[in-house]
């Protein structure tokens, strides 16, 4: 087992061999990956050292103190948080060797081709077809809500390979080359004015069978790895007091006494308390994880933050009064990074409307809590034993 002292020794060795001051960013990141210091809990040879995940902090702190460049994790969140764990669990050795290093260094950006216009909450009903032709699959269909699609080199894709069996069983998981001539990416403008997401049209896209992840028809199970990691990422940020959406509105309140009213004061205090309690709840969840007793609270955290973000940003628009009638900028843009707490109150209000939809709607999450945590009866299923092609749509 690699311990903290050993990791520290290796980190210093890396810094000595590749001094950040005189080494190119990409060269340093590649060397870090090859030294097993990228994600220490990954296997040796794949950027890790089979060390406990909690020891990553030791490496990160030492590298940060030495002024080493990082891999800009927010820009490549889908690759790091969703594609990588799936490739690690289900990829062949060849796939792991090919994809993980440039994924981690950020040389190759990843996106996710899951949701479709006709398959949102009911993702397993997806209709994008993949038909086998020799050692290739030919893919046709439409995907939606794809962030980073316009800059991505690769996509994780789920498609229907067998329409004659019930929906969960006829799905296969692929790695799709976003430079294939059959891939067309169109920006999807949202209510904020910008286009953070895309629509992706797939027309006779050819994917070699060697880029299949997991077995034929096993794609739903593979996708669970991806989706579980997504929800961990969405609910799992660590915040100081006033660290989230409550921060900007509290500062506005302090700096602008002329905006204060009694009604707004009561509502602000209620939301401040709720935001602080949600922060403590998230902190308690993290402490449980560290102690090796993961609680079911994770499913709830996303619900709590979605509602709070919406209510707090809504309050701030109202607090701003006349300024609340204005909007900073409606220009159509394609931002590379999304900052929920960035820009003006109006933007935050509009953007946070998506928080209760993206990554699982609040309604679906409430069902999950009710069924998996409280053990209440599942929703009646009329689609379970019906072939996908016979479902109503």
């Amino acid at each position, binding site marked *: 087992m690699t311990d903290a002292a050993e990791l520290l020794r290796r980190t210093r060795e890396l810094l000595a061999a590749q001094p950040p001051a005189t080494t190119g960013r990409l060269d340093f990141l590649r060397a870090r990956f090859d030294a097993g210091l990228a994600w220490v809990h990954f296997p040796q040879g794949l950027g890790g050292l089979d060390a406990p995940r909690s020891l990553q902090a030791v490496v990160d702190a030492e590298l940060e103190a030495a002024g080493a460049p990082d891999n800009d994790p927010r820009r490549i969140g889908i690759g790091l948080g969703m594609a990588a764990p799936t490739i690690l669990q289900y990829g062949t050795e060849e796939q792991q060797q090919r994809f993980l290093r440039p994924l981690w260094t950020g040389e190759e950006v990843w996106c996710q081709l899951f949701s479709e216009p006709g398959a949102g909450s009911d993702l397993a009903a997806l209709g994008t077809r993949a038909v086998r032709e020799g050692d290739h699959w030919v893919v046709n269909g439409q995907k939606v809500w794809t962030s980073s699609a316009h800059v991505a080199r690769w996509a994780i894709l789920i498609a229907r390979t067998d329409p004659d069996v019930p929906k969960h069983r006829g799905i296969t998981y692929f790695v799709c080359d976003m430079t294939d001539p059959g891939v067309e990416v169109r920006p999807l403008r949202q209510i904020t004015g910008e286009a953070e997401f895309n629509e992706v049209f797939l027309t006779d896209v050819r994917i070699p069978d060697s880029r299949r992840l997991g077995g034929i028809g096993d794609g739903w199970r593979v996708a669970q790895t991806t989706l579980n990691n997504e929800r961990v990422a969405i609910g799992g940020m660590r915040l100081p007091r006033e660290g989230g959406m409550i921060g900007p509105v509290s500062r506005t309140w302090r700096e602008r006494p002329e905006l204060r009213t009694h009604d707004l004061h009561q509502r602000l205090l209620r939301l401040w*308390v709720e935001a602080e*309690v949600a922060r403590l709840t998230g*902190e308690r969840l993290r402490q449980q994880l560290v102690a090796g007793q993961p609680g079911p*609270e994770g499913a709830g955290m996303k619900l709590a933050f979605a509602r709070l973000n919406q209510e707090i940003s809504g309050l701030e628009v109202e607090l701003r009064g006349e300024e609340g009638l204005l909007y900073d900028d409606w220009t159509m843009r394609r931002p590379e990074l999304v900052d929920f707490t960035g820009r003006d109150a109006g933007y935050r209000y509009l953007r946070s409307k998506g928080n209760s939809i993206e990554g699982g709607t609040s309604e679906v999450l409430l069902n999950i809590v009710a069924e998996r945590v409280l053990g209440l009866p599942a929703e009646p299923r009329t689609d379970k034993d019906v072939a996908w092609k016979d479902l109503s749509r």
Partner: protein
Amino acid sequence: MTDLLYSEEEEALRAAVRDLLTDHCDAAGVVARVESDAPHDPSLWKALADGMGLAGLLVPEDRGGQGATHREAAVVLEELGRAAAPVPYLTSAVVATEALLACEHAGDLLDALASGRRTGALTVGLHTAPGAAFTAVRLEGGALHGELTGIADAAAADVLLVPADDGGLYAVEADAVTVTPQASLDLTRPLARVVLDGAPGRRLGDAGPAVRRALRAGAGLLASEQLGVADWCLTETVRHVKDRKQFNRPVGGFQALKHRLAQLWLEVVSLRAAARAAADALATGEDVDVRVTVAQAYAASVAVRAAEEALQLHGGIGMTWEHPVHLYLKRAKADSIAYGTAGAHREALAELVDLPAP
């Protein structure tokens, strides 16, 4: 960072208290007892205070206590809340004890309360928030005169801690005053009127700091009791809706109910974090005011809603005297006023975190 979890020792303590309550504090027994002349359960109180030594958790060992902290007392209160137990734990082992801990001349009274030999009550109205004004009795010719109302668990106390108008806190024997029960919303934590007509008292120390400290600890740990109340309501309601069939299926399968209970679960989980944060702050002395205030500004709405949802989702049976859900509704509603309403705590918070009123 605050430790928001339960230690192994705390879980063992919980299990021991729960075992005792399972054997000696069943819901039907509590429903029957609260209508009698003696709503408190002295044998249960003796088992907790004397038998298990839980009355002395907050008292240092060299002063006759167990030398534990608010974290352990909070676990006891969670379980007592879950059982709606009619025992004066919060009022004697927390509030009166904290008041004595702040007094210079507590003498052997602290030891007597810690060991469970005697039971105390601070004669400040249950509705009083930490830092709020409270009634003091007249000190005249070396004796105490006055009338105090809304004193929780006074009927179970054998010594009263009474603030007087000279700024002192006095120990007064219960048999030297007249204690008259008041018909109370919360049947399991009854209030009483206390009349002092020339009662002798022994000065313990200054009332101001003692009352403030006592009410702050009471408010902070009340959140754990409210958590216990809410947790019982959620657990019992989930059990009921899985079991109860209408329209040829368990009513818990209807999405309208599932979503309400999932939402309630999220609130109970959140209250657990807030209550642990308050208990831990009281134990360590760090960030106490904000954490206690946040817990009290949050807890009441969760406990009350849990009890109200429990009643509604139990249907007609929830409206009967026989079913225990009303004990929890009454406790939750009374707790929402005890040691200051959520609104009073929000007001205090406005100052603490610099979000001033217009």
